[in-house]
């Protein structure tokens, strides 16, 4: 058994490429688990960060600094009464959230967390991702239709129009990244997610800096389109709270609603992963050529451990600053325990074999986390677009600019 595991750990193939169903299954479980944890963490972080942007504290009651709030929320959602409107189309109403969640999770099959850390390396990985993630609009339309209510219907209509429009701009931006990948020695481009990162590795640059400013513009187009695609502020029209109460999921509650929530956040992580893979060098560490050499490799490989140690220190500062009242004793102990666990994880991450293995995943996650922070930042800053303005931005600005960038990239690729 041990031999089996170690033999796999040393291989440089993805489970899909190796045809190893068992390992693929383990990977899928790991990704599902990690994603659920990430969504829970995102829930807490978003509320906390947004709160601090808005001069308030955010969740503070459940657990130290509200750390257990997402757990409490999840429990509350699970034990809530399951309400289905009497006039709703039962089957479709039941299927819609499942459909949305399914598409949001399926995308992660091809996300490369590292050269071998992907369930499979599809040769049409990018197409697969765009295709599957755009299927989620079907689930939203189903939800809006099945609710048999005005607000969800308008929300679903808005959502479908929005997603369809922005997918085009998104696709154009993606094509220019794919074009950039074709500038290797062999002269062949690739649609494989792993291949795209490897192309960036071979060209010693992230595509966001390629043919400056073309790569940057393509990235910005994608960054705008991905916010619209995931229905987040300032493009959160389908669920515009002040207009349509809650948009397509107005009639949903409890567990079904939590599925939409889960899907929304995992979709955000999914599109961020595409952006990171295509433009921000995927699992590559920062400055791979400028700061090269063994010393720098070692320094950068210490980052994962240092991050956790930093978080642990942060937690312990929180412990010290906790009120000294007996009422807070359990919370203080909990926070200290949490800090200790973080510190232990950090120490484990310093061990050389783990350190080398975790590197790629760490840098990938950090980049995705930055992208997620941007999502929260937008939400705290921008007002919401109106429907027609949203369409104008999509069709009259992003689309022409995307086509222009695509053509210029092609020209630059031939001439430079």
């Amino acid at each position, binding site marked *: 058994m041990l031999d089996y595991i170690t033999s796999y750990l040393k291989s440089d193939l993805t489970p899909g490429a190796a045809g190893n169903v068992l390992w693929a299954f383990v990977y899928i479980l790991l990704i599902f688990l990690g994603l659920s944890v990430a969504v829970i963490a995102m829930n807490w972080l978003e509320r906390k960060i947004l709160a601090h942007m808005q001069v308030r504290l955010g969740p503070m009651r459940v657990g130290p600094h509200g750390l257990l709030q997402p757990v409490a929320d999840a429990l509350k959602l699970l034990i809530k009464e399951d309400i289905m409107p009497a006039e709703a189309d039962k089957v479709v109403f039941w299927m819609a959230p499942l459909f949305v969640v399914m598409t949001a999770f399926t995308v992660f099959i091809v996300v490369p967390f590292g050269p071998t850390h992907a369930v499979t390396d599809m040769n049409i990985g990018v197409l697969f991702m765009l295709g599957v993630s755009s299927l989620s609009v079907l689930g939203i339309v189903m939800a809006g239709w099945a609710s048999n209510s005005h*607000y969800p219907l308008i929300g679903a209509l808005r959502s479908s129009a929005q997603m369809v429009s922005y997918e085009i701009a998104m696709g154009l931006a993606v094509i220019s990244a794919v074009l950039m990948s074709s500038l290797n020695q062999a002269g062949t481009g690739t649609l494989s997610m792993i291949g795209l990162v490897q192309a960036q590795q071979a060209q010693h640059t992230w595509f966001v800096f390629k043919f400056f400013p073309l790569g940057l513009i393509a990235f910005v187009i994608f960054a705008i389109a991905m916010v619209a695609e995931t229905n987040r502020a300032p493009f959160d029209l389908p669920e515009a*709270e*002040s207009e349509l*109460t809650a948009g397509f999921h107005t009639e949903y509650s409890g567990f079904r609603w939590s599925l939409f929530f889960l899907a929304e956040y995992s979709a955000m992580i999914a599109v961020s992963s595409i952006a990171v893979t295509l433009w921000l060098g995927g699992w590559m560490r920062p400055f791979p050529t400028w700061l090269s050499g063994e010393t720098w490799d070692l320094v950068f490989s210490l980052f994962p451990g240092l991050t956790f140690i930093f978080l642990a220190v942060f937690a312990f500062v929180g412990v010290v600053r906790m009120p000294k009242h007996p009422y807070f004793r359990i919370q203080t102990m909990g926070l200290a325990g949490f800090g200790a666990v973080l510190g232990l994880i950090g120490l484990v991450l310093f061990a050389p074999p783990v350190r080398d293995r975790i590197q790629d995943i760490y840098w990938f996650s950090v980049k995705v986390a930055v992208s997620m922070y941007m999502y929260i930042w937008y939400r705290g800053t921008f*007002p*919401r677009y*109106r*429907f027609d303005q949203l369409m104008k931005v999509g069709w009259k600005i992003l689309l022409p600019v995307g086509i222009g960038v695509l053509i210029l990239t092609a020209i630059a690729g031939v001439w430079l």
Partner: protein
Amino acid sequence: MTDATKYLSRLELGQPDQTFLDSNELIINMGPQHPATHGVLRVILKLDGEKVLGTECVIGYLHRGVEKIAEHRTYAMFNPYVDRMDYVAAVSNGLGYCEAVEKLMNIQAPPRANYIRVILTELNRLASHMLWLGTHALDIGAITPLFYTFRDREEILKIFEKYCGARLTTHAFRIGGCQYETYEGFETEVKKFLKFVAPKIDEYEELLTTNRIWVKRTRDVGVISAKDCIALGVTGPVLRASGVKWDIRKAQPYAAYSDFDFEIPIGEKGDTYDRYIVRMKEMRQSLRIIEQAVGKIPEGPIMAKIPKVIKPPVGEIYHSIEAPKGELGYFIVSDGSTQPYRLRVRPPSFVNLQALDMMVRGALVADVIAVIGTLDIVLGEVDR
């Protein structure tokens, strides 16, 4: 015939655009339980896709019969009731009522009382505009300004609380003057607040005024011409944003307003952005008024000589003031007894709400929200 269509059939509504595609209209209820209708306003919308063909406001969900209550209370007893109309600008309501009764009885509040009245009323205007800004921005999707404005509004409420013990329904003034003398350190505290709040207003503007999305969402939205405003009786910042320089503080000065130097900001186009700018400028002008007033509060009594039992002579009176939302008028008919024979309030929110249909016809659903926000209505005052 459903409830909604019954209301709508009373209106001449535009027809859906049938030249391109045949489409059905959608009639939806916005409110009374809706996050963006500022209380319990119910708007029945007739939609062609996202386009608004017509609206019908259904009000009365917060009706408490304030005017009828007045007929069964003495003049002094009715005073706290007016605070419950426009509850975000309770001080203004009280000022209007007290001045109306004083006018009816032909008495004058002493100058010191008038100065205190001006300071508190202008502070209240600031608080009301801050609440408007926060909720209006929230309706348009910018959630952060709400928390900033509420943080700063809190400082105003603290001053109110120190002055009269209440934060929201203050009952700050009495017929004939003020009941309470200013507390110790009132002037320094108000001055400190002025210093504190001026940069905060810049902060709000920084977030919104030049924000592309904000400008896009508010420019040319809910345009109303000066002529239409006057025809509908719309007053306050909405009227001024349409370019009419009408402010009762200048036109028919009451309290001590004739002593102060301030400007009336006006807009040009009468769209939502102009109304936003006008209110932001008004906040700065309020600061100016308070600054002048707090520097020279005269010494003297705070209460005029009024009889123990308030019994105005037979007659009728209309007195109006410039409340944060527009012209707030009180019409009182006295039969010589201790209770008003009839009291009628001219609430600015109620009259301004009339303009909603004209402003949103042909616009999109999202504009309805923006326009409800920009009209700055308080349902407590609309329904009374």
